[in-house]
């Protein structure tokens, strides 16, 4: 790393003042990747609240072992069917795409994504698809779970199931278009001086994710097409009475939906690498191992799908899938240990972003351990389709992905809006979330092992005590989200102004104003040779140069005049 020098950042050019945000720019069609990124994130947050409300109703019903809040079992089934679908396809996947959109071009020093129009198009598919999903309530909502196994989803579920499938079709198209854009952008638009091994790990994670999306999502489209045909055209792909096979759906569905777990968690892991390194002021430990393990997960992730079918798969096939599922624990372990190595001996700053990143490490590891237990066929046979699995998947997708999303929001909010989030509210948000998350989901392991299946409104009264604990903690977890939302709204109006680089970070998105101008950078920025080269004299010099180039934020009282920028369309 002897060749590291502080590169020039638009030296000699006049640095513009940061533009002010205008709400109307965010409500219309634009090809600016930053605005599209925010549109993704805002839309996803809306659906996060919807999915969260559904979860609250589930927990309300489960306070008692009888059916009392809902009128029929079908109504209850609707709640968790849409909760799962909304959270996966309209919250986590789009919000990750939003961060990718906002950050990838900035981290690459580019002006925009490779295909700006396609980028906007991919986003604008999502709102109508989301409405189509929710429109199920108008025609009889789906009741077959987010996995929608036939024949429940074909012969029994109401017409909302067809809308569900159409909506997922659209969301899948959006995903594929977005992923193609990411792959092309990352492969072709890196600046001079940034080889693959100088790329920020978030870009590595988005690259790995996009490869999975492009390879896996067409299989979902295939399965959905067959499902729609069975429902509306009288075919029998999944109908045993007509010569079809219910396992066909399970195989195709999980061939997409297991890799989809990595679609949901890899970008979060990418964000985590950024946040942990910046806020502990230390280079990422084992950069190449983290980058390559993302790729390993992406590839091995395609060989494990049938571990979701250990109670339905032909018994002879169960063992091979157990072995691949166990193997995938190894690259995941490499990441966790590398992150621990990153914070080890660092100078840890307890910002809200860092707290959520540490919370991720602490909770995700539980999901990893229960994941290994689930990979073992004899144990899985007992806990399959029980609350043990509900617990496991929430430790991975909430304790993992959502904690990472929260860390990402606190970390990049200043860049997105030019204002800081309130750190005190952030810490309140973290501690309520961390504690109530644990008590919402950890007891579910025990419920499952003791005999409570998932997806039931009526359960054995012996499980009520633990269910009350889970529900009460769940309500706290739901309310904690509003602390974040309040923080965001109040920051937009009165948050402290952020400078270009409030966290003293080395990646390129911090080498421009906050928020960045429509064209991102004045001139072509040269990246610092090592995106995580903290603790060196060169990095210190680079950061000092940045600070000189982008003076500290002006006081609010002096910044009354808006300074709008064109949006580049």
């Amino acid at each position, binding site marked *: 790393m002897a060749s590291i020098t502080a590169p020039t950042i638009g030296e000699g050019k006049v640095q513009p003042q940061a533009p002010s945000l205008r709400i109307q720019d965010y409500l219309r069609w634009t090809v600016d990747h930053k605005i599209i990124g925010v549109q993704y994130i805002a839309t996803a947050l809306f659906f996060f609240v919807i999915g969260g409300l559904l979860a609250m109703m589930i927990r309300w019903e489960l306070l008692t072992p009888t059916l009392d809040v809902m009128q029929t*079992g079908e109504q209850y089934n609707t709640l968790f069917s849409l909760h799962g679908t909304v959270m996966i396809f309209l919250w986590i996947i789009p919000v990750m795409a939003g961060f990718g959109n906002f950050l990838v071009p900035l981290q690459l020093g580019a002006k925009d994504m490779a295909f700006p129009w396609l980028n906007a198009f991919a986003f604008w598919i999502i709102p109508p698809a989301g409405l189509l999903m929710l429109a199920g309530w108008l025609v009889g909502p789906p009741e077959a779970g987010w996995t929608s196994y036939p024949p429940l989803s074909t012969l029994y579920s109401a017409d909302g199931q067809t809308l569900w499938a159409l909506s997922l079709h659209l969301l899948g198209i959006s995903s594929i278009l977005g992923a193609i854009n990411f792959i092309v952008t990352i492969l072709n638009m890196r600046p001079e001086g940034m080889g693959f091994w100088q790329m920020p790990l978030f870009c590595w994670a988005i690259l790995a994710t996009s490869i999975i999306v492009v390879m896996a999502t067409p299989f979902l489209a295939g399965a959905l097409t067959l499902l729609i045909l069975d429902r509306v055209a009288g075919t029998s792909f999944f109908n045993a009475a007509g010569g079809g096979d219910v396992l066909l759906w399970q195989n195709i569905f999980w061939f997409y939906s297991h890799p989809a777990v990595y679609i949901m968690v890899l970008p979060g892991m990418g964000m985590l690498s950024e946040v942990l390194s910046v806020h502990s002021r230390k280079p990422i430990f084992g950069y190449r191992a983290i980058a390559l393990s993302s790729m390993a997960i992406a590839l091995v992730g395609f060989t494990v799908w049938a571990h979701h079918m250990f109670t339905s798969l032909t018994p002879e096939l169960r063992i091979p899938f157990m072995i691949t599922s166990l193997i995938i624990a190894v690259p995941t*372990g490499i990441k966790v240990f590398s992150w621990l190595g990153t914070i080890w*001996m660092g100078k*840890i700053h307890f910002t809200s972003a860092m707290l959520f990143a540490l919370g991720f490490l602490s909770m995700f590891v539980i999901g990893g351990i229960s994941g*290994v237990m689930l990979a073992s066929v*004899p144990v899985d*046979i*007992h806990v399959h389709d029980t609350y043990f699995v509900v617990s496991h998947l929430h430790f991975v997708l909430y304790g993992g992905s959502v904690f990472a999303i929260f860390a990402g929001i606190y970390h990049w909010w200043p860049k997105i809006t030019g204002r800081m989030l309130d750190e005190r509210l952030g810490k309140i948000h973290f501690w309520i979330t961390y504690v109530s998350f644990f008590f919402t989901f950890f007891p579910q392991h025990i419920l499952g092992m003791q*005999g409570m299946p998932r997806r039931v409104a009526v359960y054995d009264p012996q499980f009520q005590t633990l269910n009350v604990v889970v529900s009460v903690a769940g309500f706290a977890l739901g309310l904690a989200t509003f602390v974040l939302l309040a923080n965001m709204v109040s920051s937009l109006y009165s948050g402290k102004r952020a400078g270009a680089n409030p966290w003293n970070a080395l990646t390129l998105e911090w080498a421009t104003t906050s928020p960045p101008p429509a064209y991102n950078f004045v001139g072509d920025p040269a990246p610092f040779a090592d995106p995580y080269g903290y603790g060196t004299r060169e990095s210190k010099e680079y950061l000092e140069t940045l600070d000189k180039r982008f003076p500290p934020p002006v006081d609010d009282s002096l910044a009354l005049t808006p300074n709008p920028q064109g949006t580049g369309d």
Partner: protein
Amino acid sequence: MSAETGKQTTTNRNSVLLIIAAFALFILGGFVIAQATPSLFPEQASAESQQVDDLFQFMLVIGGAIFLLVQGMLVYSVIRFRAKPGETGDGPPIHGNATLELVWTAIPGVIVLVLAIYSYSVWVSTTSAKDNEQVVQAVGQRFAWTFTYEVPRSAVPEDVNVADLPANIQQQFNDKGTFTITSPELHTYVGRNVKVNLLTQDSQHAFWIPAMRVKQDLLPGRVTETRFTPVLAGEYPVVCAELCGGGHGEMRASIIVHPDQETYVTWFNNEAARVFYPSEDPVERGQQVLASGAYPCAGCHILDELGWVGVTGPNQNGVADRVVNNRSPATGQTPEEYLFRSLYYPHEYLVPGFGPLMPQFQSENPGAAYYMPVEDGEAITAYFCTLSATQDNVCDLENLAAIAEAH
């Protein structure tokens, strides 16, 4: 110079000892955590449950140690390496350590290899076919379980003439030399190797006995199977674990493990006797048919007398009074006609607020999935006629016999 080297060696030796001590502590912690295993599972009622729980406990030792290692490093880091207030410096520029990275790749690799081998051996020993198995068929339908047992022709008592038995039983004898009796519970006894053949009448279900640690999905168009050997007498829940619709949570049954073969055989002979010596009283016969679980009514209806708890369909408590006071005058049908016809044509007799979910039984083809011979229809109707507040029979049984005859 030499003193300095000596000092460094001591420091190195001390940190190596510290690391070894920490790891020993984590592993010990894993053992302590794993002691919770028995309290996490239901009772070990099968030979398989012992092996599964041991495997889980083994994984909990390792998982517990890893959990403590990660949380321990996190807690240590956030205390030891926190930036002091106002501190702006960076940590040391360490980019990795090849040896360390190799170690934390190799150790998990070895762990998953061991787990794979151990899991495979448990899998083979718990699922292999055993000698002399009791074969029971479990039928799942929304939202009830029915268990059927084979009765060989040799078990027919000498004083019973097969030609006098109901048509569907005669046909079973003609087709395969045995006939089946049904029960809403799965009966077996301690030490008997059990094989359950699973089939579904409608959607997917999953057959789960938590106390036995066995679970297997029921797949339309396939017969699947599962095996276990009970070791502890008692009654344990059988649970549906695969979403099958609105009444999924109520789709429960029991397995009754008799302490020995004699008590099991006594139960079995009593059940078989109900077929060989049907009661002359249609009311009693109807109650017996329903109690045997031959029809999946319990999955959707409430009937306290028989312990039905389903909530998907209308409550059957006091149905006789409602028919006499309300439905019979409204339709112009006699109570017996109304009840009998609503059994066979449920979709024409929907109770307000309920959908057309009940299977349509027919009395012509004994091989059909939803078959209810007229004798059963008559007996069930006769029994329903007594479900009044006073427990009096509200129907004319002779008229009922005529209706059944004409059906």
